[in-house]
Structures are given as C-alpha cells and as structure tokens.
C-alpha cells in the first residue's frame, strides 16, 4: 500500500471506530432516567460519556486525516445509514437491563482485546486514543462482568432474561472477528488490529464467566453480518434519525 492509500485506509478505520463508539454511546445514554435505580443512572451515564468522548477523538482524528474542512460533527450528523460502518451489535435497541449488560460484556471483552493491540499501533494518534480508551474499558468490563454474574446468579427471572439476551445477541458477535481486506492490510502495516487473533481469548473468557454466572454460551451458529460495509439492521435508521434530527433541521448552523 502506498502512503496515500494507507492514510485513506486509516481515515476509514478511524471513522469505523468513531461510528462504533457513537452508536453504542447513543444507546447507553437512553438509560439515563430509565435505569433500575439512581446509582445506575449515574453509572450508565459515565459509560455513555466515555463512548461519546471516544467517538469525538476518533472523528477528530478522521477530520485531521481528511483535511478537507470537515469536522467531527460532519461525520456524526451528516452521514446516512449506508455511510455508517459500525458493527451491527451496537445499533440494536437497548432492550431490557439484561440485554444492555450482556451486550456490554460481549463488547467490553472484545474492546479490551482490541484496544490492547491498538495501543501498539505505529500510528501514534490511534495508539494514544487506545491507551486512554483502555483505561475506561477496564472499568466498563469490570461492571459488565459483575452485572452478568449478578443477573445470571440472581432470581429465576433475571437468569432467564440474561440467557435470552445472550441468545439474541450471539449471532451479531461473529462479525467482530472477521476483518475485511482494509482492516487486514492495516493490521499488516502495523496500524490496525487483526481481530481474528482476538476470538479465542474472547471465547475462553466468556466461557469461564458464563460458568460462574450459571449461563451457557449459545451453540447454534446463526450469524448476521454487514456493519463494516454499511449493510445495517433497520434500527440504525431510526437511531440516526433521532441523533441527527435537530442538526439537519438547521443546515449550516453553529451550536
């Protein structure tokens, strides 16, 4: 890859990671004033804030690489469903509290592997963002782990809901570990992460945790993919409609 191509690919990666963070942050922010008790409203807001902050860092870097006058908000507010390249698992509606915590667990566990690698990127900006995000993720993971154990090992109802969430989310996890050509090239260039390498450890950790929580990992192998190519579930359109509504209603305004 030429330096130019590499830069273009890095820009695309930064946007993907920004989309991941923004979409999940958006979903998490929906819990504020809806959590099971006040302490959780506050805790969920903290995690949401981390992801919004992360989105801003990735988009900010994308803007720097694009160097065409676009800023973070142009990426967040003026691209449509097909142009967003986040993983599908992140755009699913927040569901109940078990669904949210199981999704967090699957994603936090993935992120902790991913960020640990990205910290070593030879792209200094990505490495710096990853180092900061890694600290946040360590805390997120601690929370989601504990919640999944608590809910799995709580009442009959909480166990049922948690197991069900796991079943509903499982098919969306496969694409996390299926890098496309661009991501593989970036990994080879020492900039990105080859996510195929993350799966074994992810699965292992998850199995141990499921045992502790009295849950079982789904054995069936249905899989839905497409996030990285902009082939989304119907949920993303609604999410973006809401997220972008005010910004788009007043084109060209400052806020």
């Amino acid at each position: 890859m030429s330096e130019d191509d590499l830069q273009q690919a890095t820009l695309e990666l930064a946007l993907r990671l920004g989309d991941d963070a923004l979409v999940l942050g958006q979903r998490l922010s929906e819990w504020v004033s809806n959590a099971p008790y006040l302490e959780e409203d506050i805790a969920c807001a903290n995690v949401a804030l981390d992801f919004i902050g992360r989105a801003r860092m990735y988009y900010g870097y994308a803007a720097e690489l694009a160097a065409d006058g676009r800023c973070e908000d142009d990426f967040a507010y003026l691209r449509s469903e097909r142009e967003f390249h986040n993983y599908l698992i992140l755009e699913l509606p927040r569901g109940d509290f078990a669904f949210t915590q199981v999704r967090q667990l699957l994603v936090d566990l993935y992120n902790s592997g991913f960020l640990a690698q990205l910290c070593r990127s030879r792209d200094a900006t990505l490495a710096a963002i990853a180092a900061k995000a890694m600290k946040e993720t360590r805390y997120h993971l601690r929370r989601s782990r504990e919640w999944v154990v608590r809910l799995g090992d709580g009442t009959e109802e909480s166990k049922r809901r948690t197991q069900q969430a796991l079943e509903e989310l499982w098919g969306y996890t496969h694409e996390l570990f299926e890098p496309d050509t661009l991501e593989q090239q970036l990994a080879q260039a020492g900039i990105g992460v080859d996510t195929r390498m993350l799966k074994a450890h992810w699965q292992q950790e998850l199995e141990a945790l499921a045992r502790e929580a009295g849950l079982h990992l789904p054995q069936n192998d249905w899989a839905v993919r497409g996030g990285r190519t902009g082939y989304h579930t119907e949920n993303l359109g609604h999410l973006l409609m809401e997220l972008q509504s005010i910004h788009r209603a007043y084109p060209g305004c400052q806020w």
Partner: protein
Amino acid sequence: MADSQLELFEVFIRSKRGLDHKHVGSLHAQDHAQALEYARDCYTRRSEGVSIWVVKSSDICASQEEDSECFFDPSDDKPYRLAGYYRLPDPVDNM
C-alpha cells in the same frame, strides 16, 4: 411484594494524597465491591478523589447525644492541654 432496597453505605474520600478521608455522603449498593464502584461513579465525577472508603452504614457505631455531657464536657476544663494556655516571654516569641 415490598420493593427490594439495597444496602446503605457511607462513602469517605481522600481528595488528595496527604489528606484524610472525609465523609461525603451515602449510596445504595449490593455489597462493598459495588459500593466502591458506585462511589467512584457518584462521588468522583470531577476528579474529587484519589482513594475511596466505603462502610456499611449499619456498621457505624456512633456516640449518642445523651452521652455527650459525660463524653465531651470533661475536657472543657483542661485548657492546659492547649498551647495558647501558656504565655511565652517576649524574647522567646516562637515555640
């Protein structure tokens, strides 16, 4: 069914190294581990702390107001325990 109420914890925070932990409030949590995390989320959103203690509120044993006379009044008549009680000669103005 009665609403499940989590346990009440008191939160103490050391705002920076070298200072004491100070009581800042309380919160509800399942256990000590979760109370620590919530204390982090609820009471240190603006970098107010470098260390946190949590204590079950029910584990605190407090002195009672009816005891305050016999607890605290007796030390009121011992001013000689305070430096200000002693007048230093002018030439020795600092000790």
